[in-house]
């Protein structure tokens, strides 16, 4: 199904103190089931806004967003969101944070023991079983982000939405988590939409890269097919000419066609 997530003529206008601000205009995108899509662009280009539209955290001023042929009207547990700043609740343990989501989605039809199993399984999937009883302030930034991913995955969402999930992490931790995300997505076959500003991350993880023009009134500039075979390995890709070709195409889009001049 090449029309799982369907965005048509989406337009987003914000009311600000200085009047109307058009963040996005004429966004058209079709995403197939199981596809991994990256949204890339300069900061302020509205890529997070587009993700929020899909998440249902914001409503498009114009246009239609369909998921599995149903209109997206608000947030819902069939779309798991991983926030940039992890957004864990500090008074709950890692387990508690994931359990909150599991309870919401499966609580009505499954016994508590099964809910706990699901929570454990999700925490195990991101390799954090040893830290499941810890509170967020007792673990590192990378671990928090992994709990955030576990929380989103535990809901068994149809779509996984990631808003610059590794933006706040150091390069080494980021690489480790990218590999892990690749493995998890491969295992769960989740349809994924990821906002990023990291060119390497986009090329490494994506099936397609959606490159956005600069705001205001940003739209989709180009869509790049990443035809690298899976499973991908960052070390062998490093010497792969095709990888570098794709990478330079994204860079060319960002820095030649749509260079953002510093104000």
């Amino acid at each position, binding site marked *: 199904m090449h029309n799982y997530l369907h965005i048509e003529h989406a337009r987003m206008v914000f009311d600000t103190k200085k009047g109307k601000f058009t963040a996005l205009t004429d966004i058209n995108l079709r995403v197939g089931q199981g596809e991994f899509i990256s949204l890339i662009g300069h900061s302020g280009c509205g890529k997070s806004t587009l993700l929020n539209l899909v998440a*249902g955290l914001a409503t498009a001023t114009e246009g239609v967003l369909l998921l599995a042929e149903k209109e997206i009207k608000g947030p819902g547990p069939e*779309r798991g*969101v991983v926030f940039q700043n992890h957004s864990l609740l500090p*008074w709950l343990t890692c387990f508690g944070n994931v359990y909150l989501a599991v309870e919401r989605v499966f609580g009505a039809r499954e016994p508590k023991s099964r809910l706990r199993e699901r929570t454990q399984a999700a925490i195990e999937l991101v390799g954090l079983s040893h830290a499941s009883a810890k*509170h967020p302030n007792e673990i590192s930034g990378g671990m928090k982000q992994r709990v955030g991913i576990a929380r989103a995955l535990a809901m068994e969402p149809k779509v996984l939405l990631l808003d610059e999930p590794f933006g706040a992490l150091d390069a080494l931790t980021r690489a480790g988590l990218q590999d892990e995300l690749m493995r998890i997505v491969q295992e769960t076959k989740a349809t994924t939409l990821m906002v990023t500003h990291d060119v390497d991350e986009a090329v490494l993880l994506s099936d397609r890269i959606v490159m956005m023009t600069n705001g205001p009134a940003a739209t989709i500039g180009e869509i790049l097919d990443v035809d690298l075979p899976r499973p991908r390995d960052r070390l062998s890709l490093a010497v792969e000419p095709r990888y570098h070709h794709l990478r330079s195409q994204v860079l060319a889009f960002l820095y030649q066609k749509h260079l953002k001049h510093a104000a």
Partner: protein
Amino acid sequence: MSAVTFNETHYSMNSPVTPPSPVVSPPPPPGLGERKNSQTNPQRGAEAGALPQGRKTPMWESERGQAFGEAVGKFFRAALPPLLGMALFILLWQIVSSSGGEHGLPGPAKTWESAKILFADPFYDKGPNDKGIGWNILHSLYRVGAGFGLAALVGIPAGFLIGRFAFLAAMVAPVISLLRPVSPLAWLPIGLYVFKQTEPASLWVIFISSIWPIILNTAAGVSRVPQDYLNVARVLNLSEWTIFTRILFPSVLPHLMTGIRLSIGVAWLVIVAAEMLTGGTGLGFWVWDEWNNLNVEHILIAIFIVGFTGLLLEQALVMVANRFNYE
């Protein structure tokens, strides 16, 4: 070769403070390490074994001893300024009292003697206007507790509502701004007029003066719940009840605790004044009673009791508040 010998040589070689002993004197044969040397040299072993067993490592040289010494030093560095401050305060008090001559304030020593008598029997009860100091403290605490409890009962839900609904906040803002600066005791006549009795009137004064910090801090906490947490709630599509119990309430709790702390502080300030006016029992009444008896030592003692009890309340609440600090 026993472990004792090894330990002894080990320590005496490492600590420069130890006077030279025969154990260390023989020069080690070239090419051998210290440890090996102490184990292989028969002469050394014999000499070390012959040493009296009394030569133990002094406590202050051992690692534990040094850690202990550091802790003591730290304690003194931390305790010195406050102790010095208290000492200066008492000195100042002494100077003031002795400069007053015959009718000056009672000095620290005289007050201390008086306090010892007072606290020897804190819970006597000789009729309505003559009760032990313990009873008076408990009565004041009870009033603060009851008045504050009512304020919390009303103020916490009110704070949540005001923080949650901007309309409501805008509605009550002028009323709160108008009533909040009113001196607590100005409310006493209203209480006396409405309730016709002193006891509910003094509870009313505590209630009305301690409700504002609770309302305002709770409301501020609710309106400042981080958007991140609310986004989590929205993405998970949580029910209103779950949002309240799992996200809103824990997130507001630190602010709420600040409100409670300020409230109890105000309540404790107000109760002494209110009891001076309503009479009967309590620390405030006692102060006024002793003023009528011209027992100035007791007034000074009362001031210390009020201060000390307030300090204890504050510290207890700070401890509770830290329990809910997640960051």
